[in-house]
């Protein structure tokens, strides 16, 4: 990173962590710039949650350095936590507290708490303030956690599988409206790091992403660059589709008269190659982030 560029909100260098002898994260590098929404994608056990926990000082890294908002989580724990909010993958609250009491409890730790947003979100999620947290469904608990994370208007929002358990309507509303509104509240300064399996749901929100596999970052890319680079080319031939030997192709699949090619680089060369085979029809389209994820890991 050049000296002229601003300090990343999250700056992870060569991060390693192991549970006993099982390495969860290996030599991971990650940089998230301010105002961006960064996706952390990976299979189960890829190291996404461990990475988040290292950022939050919930786990002490075995190796490497971690900086959050320019600070060291181990040394400036409280200063960092004042400026961030976290939604864990499994949300739980004290069962004896009501929804209102839970929010009061969490608000008491914050110097700033937006009551208007709280009221709005409670209404939007149809959460009853007098209901005990122990009586909430899994999805409602997640909604409550999201309300609690958004209301302090933190500089950095860490979301670990935030939409698990949410119904499709709330999920869509949460991603498009709530998260969008959160970032629009102070554009350029509110950053999100989200780990999720539901990549398609976050498609329009994510600016850049990192794909983790077995604790390593295998691909870090801007979302737009990914769409440019990863293309699907479909061609139909008059007879059986011919075998294609193209250098830039990630995957080639023949199905009767149809040829399906995925590319991970400039698609022009592959397109030219296919056109030389005289197809009846030929088209190319950008892959979705989910397809990029699948293509990268498979």
């Amino acid at each position, binding site marked *: 990173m050049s000296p002229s560029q601003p300090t990343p909100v999250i700056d992870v260098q060569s991060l390693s962590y192991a*549970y*006993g002898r099982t390495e969860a994260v290996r030599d991971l590098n990650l940089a998230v710039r301010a105002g961006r929404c960064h996706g952390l994608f990976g299979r189960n056990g890829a190291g996404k949650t461990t990475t988040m*926990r290292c950022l*939050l*000082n*919930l*786990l*002490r890294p075995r190796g490497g350095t971690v900086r959050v908002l320019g600070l060291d989580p181990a040394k400036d*724990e*409280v200063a960092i*936590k*004042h400026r*961030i*909010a*976290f*939604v*864990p993958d*499994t*949300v*739980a*609250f*004290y*069962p*004896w*507290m009501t929804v209102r*009491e*839970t929010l*009061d*409890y*969490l*608000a*008491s*730790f*914050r110097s700033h708490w937006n009551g208007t947003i709280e009221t709005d979100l409670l209404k939007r999620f149809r959460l009853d303030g007098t209901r*005990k947290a*122990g*009586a909430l469904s899994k999805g409602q608990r997640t909604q409550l*956690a999201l309300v609690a994370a958004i209301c302090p208007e933190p500089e950095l929002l860490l979301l670990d599988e935030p939409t698990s358990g949410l119904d499709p309507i709330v999920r869509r509303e949460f991603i498009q409206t709530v998260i969008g509104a959160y970032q629009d509240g102070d554009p350029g300064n509110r950053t999100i790091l989200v780990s999720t399996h539901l990549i398609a749901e976050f498609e329009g929100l994510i600016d850049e992403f990192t794909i983790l596999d077995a604790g390593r970052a295998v691909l870090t890319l801007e979302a737009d660059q990914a769409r440019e680079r990863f293309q699907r080319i479909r061609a139909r031939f008059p007879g059986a589709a011919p075998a294609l030997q193209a250098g830039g192709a990630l995957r080639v699949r023949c199905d009767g008269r149809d040829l399906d090619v995925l590319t991970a680089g400039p698609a022009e060369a592959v397109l030219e190659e296919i056109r030389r085979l005289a197809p009846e029809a030929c088209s190319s389209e950008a892959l979705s982030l989910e397809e990029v994820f699948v293509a990268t890991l498979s």
Partner: protein
Amino acid sequence: MTPFIRKELRSLAIPAGLVLAATLVGAWAASGLVLFPRQHSWDLFALAWFLGTPLVAASSFGTEFHHRTMTLLLTQPVPRGRVWMEKWFCLVGVVSVLAVAQVVSVLVAVQEPSLKAESLWTVVVPGFRLTAVMFAVMIVCSAPLWTLLARSTIGGFVATSVMVMYVEATIGFLGWLSSRVVYWVTGTISAHAVFGLATPVADGVRAAYSLLTLWLGWRVFARFQTVGTGFFDGQSTDLTAARWAVLRPRRGGAIGNIVRKELMLHRPTFLVAAAFVAVWLALRLVLLLRTAAMGPASAADAADVLTGLLLLAYMPFVIALTGIMPAGEDCSLGVRTWHLTLPVSTRSQWAIKLVVSLVVGFVLVLVLPALLTATVADAGAVFFHAAPGDFFKPFAVIVVTGGIVLGFWASALLGDTVKAAVGIAVVAFALALVVLLGGSVGDLVGRRAHWFAEIVTGLNAPRGLLLRATGLELAVPVFITTGIVALWQSLVAFRQVQMARPTAVRMSLTLLAVAFVTALVGAACATAAWQVHFNM
């Protein structure tokens, strides 16, 4: 043996192993091979039996709630009746083995000349029938019911123990009532005329309670629904749904809110203390009535029973609970991770938890028993002497503090209430063994090393220290050193949301090593000083 029975026996193995270990340690202590006052072997037998059996019995269904496998169990293509029978017969088998081990150990122990005093013999042997048979029957039959209702191992354990005490209090009351009726009818006084504590009629009441709870337990299991919450979850019963308004969180005051939250986490401990006090006062009333009928000798018996309950049942359990609940419940509820991400330092959160635990512990384990003991202090108890002031002596305070710190340590390391409860029991026994070993080795060193004695003499140790150390006296330095190490380790563990098993094992071994060295050095110094003092 079917896989289900193997699974069942495996789930009972850890608590049963603990009870067995405590029994064997008691027998070992009685043998006089270790530096331990022999008469305290009875305390170990009683602790193992009266705390261990309900724990084993509650584990049968409790483990299903703890591991959240009840739904899995009930959705298997096996009739509920068969599941119930296999679970119950496994429990009966395991408790029978423990009962035999207990009986054999006590019989071996009473062969020791120093323990063969007539008073002990006459007290212990008749008590056998009650403890080894009727107590076990009541526990085994009633534990499934109470555990299914409480939906947790600890809740089932508490409810089972408390209800058995209520039954005994009721029998005692009925015994007194029957003696009064006999007196009014015949004009003669007889405390056990019809309904004494050790009459067939009383055993009939115990058997009726056992059969009734066994049948009710089966009914509850046959109709069991995997919805709703447990007794301690704060919404399932009127008792726990009671308004604890003063402990509700407020919009301002972060530290105050954490303290209130910590006190709420201790709510099961408060409920246990309240239930115990109610039972204790009921028993006190019954025994008061018996004393009025039978005279001062009965008052001493009553004081023994009541003080014994306080020292052997209530105090160890509440010490462990007070230490375990704050960190263990945070993990069991699943709130630990996000709570650590709140803008309050981990160290502050740890310190608040510890301080609240210690304060709650001192109130419930020192102040409350002192108040209760005040009512029986002058009765002339034979086995268990405790004056109210004894609870505030340095020894008691250090032991209680050490116990709470060890409970806190276990829950921070293991991250779960039930695991921590089992863990603290394992560590407590391991510590006891290590202290006995270290003390014994230290005693040998102190006897043989004259040069060591000279060094100790040169230190001009105060006269009060010039006594050979016993296991209990070694407990003070051991609790101090291990307490300090446990505090540090608990802070390290508290910072981590997931403790790797090798790290937890390493920390435990470090703790035991510190205890061993402390006991060794302490015993060696004490023995050497004792030799010098008496010119031996």
